[in-house]
């Protein structure tokens, strides 16, 4: 079945151009003009990736993001008009996996989507499962358990945890994580890593403010503390 991409954008011309560009990649594109329409469309038939413009009339992109996250771990790419403001961090905290900034190259957008689709597939088998503290990561099954209870993570959060857990105690720089988890081959935005680590901590740590498992090594990056 063809990959389905839900594009939520209120500007008709942008929507059409983006649809054509994505169709060129061989993907099926479903269009939505507003957040409300997107929620309905997604409820009708879930998409493989959702592309959300943050500036939407009515229900805005952040709200749509949170609303989708309540029921699904579908990969979400947000489209922002600004890189410097809090929009990016707020969007990531609302649950987005990655972002592109207007105006973006169609190639850049498809690269981001392809990276997300790769992540959505089960991780390559053969990775040993790792146990630290009360946590247990099983890459083959795509699950994390705390004291035997499964914790729900998005694909990106899970992939991030797997990377860090592949070498417990080793420090991973933001660049390394951006490359391995998000597929950026050069400078990505370090905030992607930071916000995802924060999201991950709220789910797997007992006290997210004083993390015991995913710890920061200031100036260097992050590591798993065993």
């Amino acid at each position, binding site marked *: 079945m063809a990959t389905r991409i839900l594009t939520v954008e209120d*500007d008709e011309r942008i929507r059409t*151009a983006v649809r054509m560009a994505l169709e060129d990649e061989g993907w099926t594109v479903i269009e939505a003009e507003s957040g409300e329409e997107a929620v309905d469309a997604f409820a009708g038939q879930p998409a493989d990736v959702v592309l959300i413009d943050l500036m939407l009339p009515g229900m805005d992109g952040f709200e749509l993001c949170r609303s989708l996250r309540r029921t699904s771990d579908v990969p979400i790419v947000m489209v922002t008009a600004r890189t410097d403001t809090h929009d990016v961090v707020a969007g990531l905290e609302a649950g987005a996996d990655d972002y592109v900034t207007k105006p973006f190259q169609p190639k850049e957008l498809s690269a981001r989507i392809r990276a997300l689709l790769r992540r959505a597939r089960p991780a390559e088998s053969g990775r040993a499962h790792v146990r630290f503290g009360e946590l247990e990561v099983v890459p083959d099954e795509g699950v994390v358990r705390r004291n035997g209870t499964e914790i729900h993570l998005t694909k990106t959060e899970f992939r991030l945890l797997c990377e860090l857990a592949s070498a417990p105690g080793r420090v991973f720089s933001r660049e390394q994580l951006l490359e391995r988890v998000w597929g950026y081959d050069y400078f990505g935005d370090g905030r992607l890593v930071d916000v995802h680590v924060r999201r991950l901590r709220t789910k797997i740590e007992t006290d997210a403010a004083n993390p015991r498992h995913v710890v*920061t090594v*200031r100036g260097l990056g992050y590591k798993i503390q065993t």
Partner: protein
Amino acid sequence: MNTAGPGVATRARRFMRMGLRTRLTVAFALGALVLSVILATVTYGLVRENLVRQREASATRQAFLNARVLRDSLRGASASEQSLLDTLQTPAGASPVLFRAGQWFAANPIEQGREQLPVRLRELVASGKAARMRFNLKGTTELAIGVPIPSIDGAYFEIASFSDVQRTLTSLALSLLAAAIVTTIAGAALGATASRRVLRPLSHVSAAAVAIAGGRLDTRVARVTDPELGTLIDSFNDMAGALQERIERDARFASDVSHELRSPLTTLTASVGILDARRDELPERARAALDLLSADVQRFSSMVEDLLEISRFDAGAAHLHLETARISELVVQAVAASGNRGVPITVSAEAAASTVAVDKRRLVAVVSNLLSNAERHGGGATTVDVELGDGGTVRIAVEDAGAGVAPEDKERVFERFARGADAAGRRGTGEGVGLGLALVREHVNLHGGRTWVEDRRDGAPGARFVLELPLVAVGPDSAGDEVDLGPAAISATELATELAAEAAAEQAELGETLE
């Protein structure tokens, strides 16, 4: 011909040129001086009048008394006039003179005599009238009183001195002068104090104006209770508010325009991408047109980006997201990120392990702007080198093989919309957006660094754009600051070892892959 006019005007101008405080002090001092001089003069005049009148009254009384004594004595016995005169009671400094039967007698014959008495007084007395007259004798004022004594066919004169009155008046004048001087000084002091008090709010206003000029647009002056100064401060604050609003509106306008342009640009970029994917299906002329379109959409996008970026600096909304990283790694990544992987990068041994705190996005923008500047104006970057600068800094330099920058343009190239081309066409294809180098400078300034352009080191024609950033020391001594982190903190020595090892590996790798 008016010669006094310009003189007065000049003096007035000179006075106005003095500070308000000086002028107020001078005015207060002058006021006090004038007032005290008037008071002193009036006081002196009244006292003098009073003393003189008293002296005249007492001298007259004494003269009449003495005349009566002489009359009684001379009418009876045939006493000697001279001896009588000597026994007369006279106030200090007074000289009795007797005229009898055409003969003059004086107590002090050498000094006093007929010659010294005013003629008019003698005539009046001779006609039988008592008279009193002030006259000048050897520079001092004297009082002469004449009393006719018909019963002995003579007249009695007395010359009284004013010297003691004069002494009293002199000491009074000295006291009044001293009081006037003290009053004037007090006036000046009062003027200085008052003007300082008056001007204190003005100095606050001045400090606020300096702060506003320095970019702290939200500076305001605290209100004061004084109604007049309150008006000034209110007006100043209103002006500052209006100015701030206007500057912010201008900055916001540039930012809003850039944002508004992003939507159509998104459509343009996406559409050009779609066309580009089908370029093989296009006729040749359409393909050529597509290339033009594609290049300019790209250029347009970066112009909008640059405008937006610079409007953030103007709005004071540019904030650093600092991350600590090794400079060598950053430069390699920045060069790669700006799509110029082919440019050779040289990192000096000392610079290889050094660390900087930078906003990576900005550093990428800086390196990329310098590289595309070299591309546009200097035929492409020939080398990027990284080395330590003076005083704990690191320098990143981009060299090109263009015609270089003329000495007079070395500052100007960093100005906004400064085009590189001059009459001789040394630089420039007219393509320069003109914001690139201005942004480089803004970004680097934000990091507390410096930027400049110089000639190539090897003497070949070409420009060398240098940026200097402050280093963050990383070593066994300071590493403690770099590590935070709770239970998982790795030790300082561990960190230093790790860094050194990575730096060495990095250098080996650089040598292999980048040359």
